[in-house]
């Protein structure tokens, strides 16, 4: 049967425009073409599109978002929304709205978002989702809206998410399919290498400055804490901040020399990606584990103080569980990023062969 659409058998312009708008841009071209090819009637077209678009969006979300990223963003926002915790419904709506904003933004954007401007635009979508959720709460239960201080907390959380996305592009900045794309020319390869170097340097700077800031900030509780367990714990946490700053600074990517040919440039780039992959894959060993002693001493010191004042001990257990959970999420996220780098290294290896 010849299914080629003619002037009489093309979908109505309005329906076609709506369907086109709903399909994520990276797969719009071929999906809409296939739907046109199967066109028989407007109703069939609508049903066909309704049965296709949810799968296409879900697949694109799988390719562009990571579960670890969503959990990290949600946790950051949850901490900031602690101010409005008495309004649980509004806080849940705010979290859901912001996450939906981030996830859909990542699914519907073209290419990668690693520059400061692109990451800022990503954040606008997350904030838009949060505001839209509160607008809906305002319509249904106006008294349950988040209080103003909670928005100030959200602002701080979005600042942290901004830094996290700049520092780790795996948290939604780079879609999975970008890892298998291979540069066709020497210029494209050099552009990619320079982008990788810029991203790495930026990530190192954010991580190192944060480490130094943490080290400086934690000196305050070292001198003001009421018991020795807390003091030693905060001192270890402060030393940990400095340690991370030094280790990360030392792991910086050296710039690729200008004089390299295609093959040597490719080998250099693959070598750097492999080095970065090993660092990320062993993150649990050099980044997560050294954090544990300080954290445990702080929890122990806080528990001693709580017992002295007759306060309940369960917050300490919740804190340990939360920190352990975040450690697992960071570990899983780093393993996912290491796997993506492996795919990239292999894809570049196919050109070398």
């Amino acid at each position: 049967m010849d299914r080629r659409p003619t002037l009489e058998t093309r979908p109505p312009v309005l329906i076609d425009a709506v369907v086109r708008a709903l399909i994520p841009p990276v797969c719009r071209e071929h999906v809409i073409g296939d739907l046109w090819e199967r066109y028989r009637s407007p109703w069939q077209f609508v049903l066909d599109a309704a049965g296709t678009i949810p799968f296409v969006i879900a697949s694109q979300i799988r390719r562009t978002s990571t579960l670890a990223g969503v959990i990290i963003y949600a946790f950051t926002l949850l901490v900031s929304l602690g101010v409005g915790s008495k309004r649980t419904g509004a806080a849940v709506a705010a979290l859901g709205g912001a996450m939906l904003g981030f996830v859909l933004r990542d699914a519907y954007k073209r290419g990668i978002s690693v520059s400061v401007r692109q990451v800022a635009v990503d954040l606008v979508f997350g904030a838009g989702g949060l505001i839209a959720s509160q607008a809906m709460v305002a319509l249904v239960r106006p008294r349950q809206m988040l209080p103003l201080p909670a928005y100030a907390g959200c602002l701080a959380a979005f600042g942290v998410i901004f830094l996290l996305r700049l520092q780790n592009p795996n948290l939604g900045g780079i879609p999975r399919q970008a890892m298998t794309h291979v540069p066709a020319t020497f210029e494209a390869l050099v552009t990619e290498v320079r982008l990788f170097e810029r991203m790495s340097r930026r990530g190192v700077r954010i991580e190192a400055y944060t480490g130094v800031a943490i080290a400086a900030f934690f000196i305050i509780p070292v001198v003001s804490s009421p018991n020795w367990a807390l003091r030693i714990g905060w001192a270890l946490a402060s030393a940990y901040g400095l340690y991370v700053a030094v280790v990360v600074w030392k792991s910086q990517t050296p710039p690729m020399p200008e004089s390299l040919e295609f093959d040597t440039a490719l080998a250099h780039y693959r070598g750097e990606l492999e080095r970065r992959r090993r660092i990320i894959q062993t993150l649990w060993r050099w980044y997560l584990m050294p954090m544990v002693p300080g954290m445990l001493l702080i929890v122990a010191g806080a528990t001693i103080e709580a017992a002295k004042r007759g306060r309940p001990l369960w917050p300490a257990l919740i804190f340990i569980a939360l920190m352990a959970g975040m450690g697992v999420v960071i570990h899983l996220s780093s393993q996912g990023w290491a796997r993506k780098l492996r795919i990239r290294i292999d894809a570049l290896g196919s050109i070398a062969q």
Partner: protein
Amino acid sequence: MAHPESIGQFEHVVLAAVLALGDSAYGVTIHTKVEELVSPRTVALGAVYATLDRLEDKGLVTSWLSDPTPERGGRSKRHYRLESAGERALRDASVAAKRICDDVERIWGEDVWTAGRHWKPARQS
């Protein structure tokens, strides 16, 4: 040699469709072939896209856009091709499926393939 990528049943069917279609493997034709292979079940076109995306991410197939054609409103087709890892995965899954079929046939006899809808399982709950 790298560990061969494991694939699910539907991925197996989609890989078989891509193999069977050769150079003419794109969304619509792959969907038609998949429905033919899993008949009488029907399959959503979207499920085929999602599976093709997953197979591409696993490095089992590669895709590229053809030139735009007027009969599709000036849109391109996304063509798919099996990679060597995809061929290995398809072969491994097919060998396993063949072993299962052989065992089923040995126990229930050749009628199991020809009896069609009249065939009833030996044990009925």
